[in-house]
């Protein structure tokens, strides 16, 4: 380990205490006595419409029949402590399109349908969120069996459960406090699970060693990503941390950066070349960013979300060289690592490539890789299972990281148990092996089929151009929106693709996310649609989209 190797993520460069945290309480700007007055009446009924702007429940309308006065006794309405003006301004900038306004409208429509209100569609199809089970994907039987056994160990006496599931369950429970999933685990995660994760990574990466001490079990990958971003953000003014993110990107990144008050540095993926990364574009972005901030990190999602591109090995090497040269901390979001469909595409982990590039890089480039139980063939989003591996992190910073994760106590233990199964699935010869392989193959090949189908059908529509869906779970086709529609959208104060998607929702019941939620080149429009619905439903969906697009184009020509 060379003495000249300098860590750019050293304790000197970071502060855990920084200015713009996630919160819903007031900013330091001083309270305004003349702030917005309480707008709710004491007798407001409970509203059943959308989450937003609900009437507040009245604390005086208890069954004891306390008097229901409209205002306080002296008739003056009292301004709140916590208002839009006094709350943390960065929180107001946070948007998360995947569950944003269009989804809220979709939920409303679902409610209206269930109340019998007539619509031009029989059901709302939520093709907005990467939630496989919600769309009918089946969980892996073995995983659920083991988790059930761990939850209710009495079932270890039940002979309908296979022996290998029971053995796994016993092993997991043994490593839990009090032999229970309900006890806290160490903050970094259950030791034996971290060991299993390390073994998995070593096998996956052809023997590149993995130290379990570098593994942190997290609440989904999002938790790990946000934690790392918290560590990275510091400085003021021109020294403020800048974080490079791909455009289009998964909006967790932009939301987290907004909340943390970091500078978002956009680098565009190349739509003409199947959304690949272009080093020249990375260079342009970082050069320009240096004029107003201090770039410290580069985030990559591979396979990509929303774009689905699977980076080539060469590309990954180029990115690593770039990061080394520009002194950037690499964040590799690899949650879709098993979701690779296209011929000639293969998943290459950043870590493996890094180590194969030799000590000049493998001993210096700082990297955090993220994985999760939510995607791939498991689709277990609800468990919030995940891990991150940190490579070449400064020891003092690692100490701070360990301290930081201890504040949230621990990641959910059922999720940790599930992650253990993902990295340590049934082996050949074990009773559950055959059915496990069968289920996994079926799920992944169905996804591959749907990826192909999506690309095919959408490309038959004039005005829609869909890049091959090489991996992940989404298509991100480009749509041509007629000028008249753009005009109407702007008049309504809406992004044109939001306008388009809202119309599609109202007319077909299909819920997609407009490209503006992910970022796109100026003047281009897209939407993101998952490939998750069962294939028959997907065909119907794609054809409805086709119909709608043609009608919409016609209507606004």
């Amino acid at each position: 380990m060379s003495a000249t190797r300098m860590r750019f993520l050293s304790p000197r460069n970071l502060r855990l205490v920084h200015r713009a945290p996630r919160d819903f309480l007031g900013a330091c700007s001083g309270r305004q006595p003349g702030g917005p007055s309480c707008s709710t009446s004491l007798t407001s009924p409970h509203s059943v419409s959308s989450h937003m702007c609900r009437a507040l429940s009245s604390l005086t309308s208890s069954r004891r029949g306390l008097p229901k006065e409209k205002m306080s006794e002296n008739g003056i309405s009292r301004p709140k402590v916590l208002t839009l003006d006094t709350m943390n301004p960065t929180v107001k900038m946070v948007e998360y399109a995947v569950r944003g306004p269009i989804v809220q409208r979709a939920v409303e429509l679902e409610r209206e349908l269930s109340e019998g209100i007539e619509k031009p569609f029989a059901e709302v199809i939520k093709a907005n969120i990467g939630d496989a089970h919600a769309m009918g994907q089946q969980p892996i039987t073995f995983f659920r069996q083991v988790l059930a056994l761990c939850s209710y160990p009495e079932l270890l006496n039940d002979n309908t459960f296979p022996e290998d599931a029971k053995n796994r369950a016993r092993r997991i429970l043994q490593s839990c406090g009090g032999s229970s999933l309900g006890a806290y685990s160490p903050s970094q995660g259950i030791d034996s699970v971290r060991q299993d994760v390390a073994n998995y990574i070593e096998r996956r990466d052809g023997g590149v060693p993995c130290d379990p001490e570098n593994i942190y079990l997290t609440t989904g990958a999002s938790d790990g990503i946000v934690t790392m971003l918290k560590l990275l953000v510091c400085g003021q003014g021109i020294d403020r941390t800048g974080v490079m993110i791909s455009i289009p990107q998964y909006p967790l990144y932009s939301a987290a950066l907004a909340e943390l008050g970091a500078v978002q540095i956009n680098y565009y993926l190349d739509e003409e070349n199947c959304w690949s990364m272009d080093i020249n574009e990375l260079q342009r972005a970082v050069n320009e960013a240096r004029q107003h901030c201090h770039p410290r990190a580069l985030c990559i999602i591979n396979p990509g979300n929303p774009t689905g591109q699977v980076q080539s090995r060469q590309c990954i090497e180029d990115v690593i060289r770039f990061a080394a040269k520009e002194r950037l901390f690499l964040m590799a979001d690899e949650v879709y690592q098993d979701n690779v469909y296209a011929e000639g595409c293969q998943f290459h982990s950043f870590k493996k490539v890094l180590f194969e590039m030799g000590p000049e890089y493998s001993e210096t480039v700082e990297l955090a890789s993220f994985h999760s139980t939510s995607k791939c063939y498991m689709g277990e989003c609800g468990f919030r299972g995940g891990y991150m591996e940190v490579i070449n992190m400064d020891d003092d910073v690692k100490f701070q990281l360990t301290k930081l994760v201890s504040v949230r106590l621990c990641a959910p233990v059922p999720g940790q148990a599930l992650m253990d199964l993902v990295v340590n699935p049934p082996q050949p010869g074990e009773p559950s092996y055959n059915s496990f392989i069968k289920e996994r193959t079926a799920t992944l090949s169905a996804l591959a089929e749907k990826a192909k189908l999506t690309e095919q059908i959408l490309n038959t529509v004039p005005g829609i151009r869909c890049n091959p869906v090489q991996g992940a779970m989404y298509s991100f086709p480009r749509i041509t929106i007629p000028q008249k529609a753009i005009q109407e959208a702007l008049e309504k104060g809406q992004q044109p693709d939001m306008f388009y998607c809202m119309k599609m929702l109202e007319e077909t019941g299909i819920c997609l996310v407009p490209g503006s939620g992910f970022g796109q080149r100026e003047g281009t429009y897209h939407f993101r649609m998952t490939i998750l619905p069962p294939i028959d439903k997907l065909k119907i969906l794609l054809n409805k989209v086709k119909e709608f697009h043609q009608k919409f184009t016609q209507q606004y020509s």
Partner: protein
Amino acid sequence: TAEVEANAVVWGSGQTHLMTGVKKPYTELIDVTWGDPQGAGLKPLTFARQVLAACLYPKLLNNERLPADVRQRAEGLLHECHGGSVGSYTDLPGIPQVARQISEFISRRDGGVPSDPDHILISPGGGGGGVRSGVLTPQPSYSLSVMSVVGLGGVPVPYQLWEEQGWEVQVEELNRALEAAEGECDPVALYVINPGNPSGHVQRRKSIQDVIKFASEKRLFLLADEVYQDCIYKENIEFLSYKRVLAEMGPPFCDTVELASFHSASKGLLGECGFRGGYVELVNMDPAVMKHVFTIFSKDNAPTPGQIALSVMASPPQPGDPSYPLYRTVNNVRKVHEVLNSLPGVSSHPVEGGAFAFPRIDLPPKAIQKAKDLGMEPDIFYCLRLLEDAGLFFTPGCEYGQKDGTYHVRYAKKRFHVEYKDLNTKIKQYYFSLAGFAS
């Protein structure tokens, strides 16, 4: 705070250092540091785990060895999960049935004060709401709450809880703290924890009213951490929630004081710390702000097993249900005998609630000196010796904050797989051996 953090870290590394298989004069480490009931040997609620297992592996819905109410509950929950699977994301604020059950639970608990399910957000663990600016925080207090405030860029403004006054919140002290903060930061919130950690004090109605009035007058957002509300041990004491007291105070307070109350499935009867299930109820929050709160929460799905635990917590088996008889027997919780109090040099207020006791230890001057020579806090030294020599794992009071010159230890009151006799004997033996060391 930096010192507290440093001590916590020393302590933390002390913990790991000792797990290395070195030969010791004891065979088992008795860990009373965590408020982790199941880690300490508490068996989880059968009903809760049966429901969870059936939700995880729905084939069990046809298994007649599971009681009917279990299967019904699981079926109901699965019905409200997308795709009928607990593996899906849940919408805000969580599985609808669970949010409803929680609001009904709150209302029952609070003698009928209504609770709107739309103002309940289910979160991973009862930690919740970050803060910026100044937050009044109690001292002594659970270090992680202070660390959360610090880690989020906030400034903790400590207000003392005086041992001589039974660890009760004193309004004059709140005033003093607020005044001391002038110029340092802009206090925007008041954090209270009831029942207390580590003190175990349970606030009475008048005290809660005084705090509410103070918050109202000084325009502070109230954060009420009530995760130990089901841990009340003293007879004739009732847990009163901040929400209930606020509602029963009538206008103007009930419609104006802004409050966030936190609860969790980690403590009490459920003790499901590992599931990370908690919720926050928002009262009198500006609707426009609430919209942003929902956006923040929308990025952070609460884990489904945690939501299932909350469902059972909010809506446990009822008389007449097949699982009720078994559920009923769990309420028989063994209490720790306050043997520490019978030792010379140890004193403690009667523990009313919460999960811990926080007795004061009068350390012999020689022990204090020895600690200082080693460059560590005397109570850390004491706890390290207790650990090394007797295999007893307590936490030192300096981690929570204590009056200068006083020393405390915190220990969890419930031990389930260790005979109290053994624990008490060991403590006695050790104490006297320490006295021997000191003389």
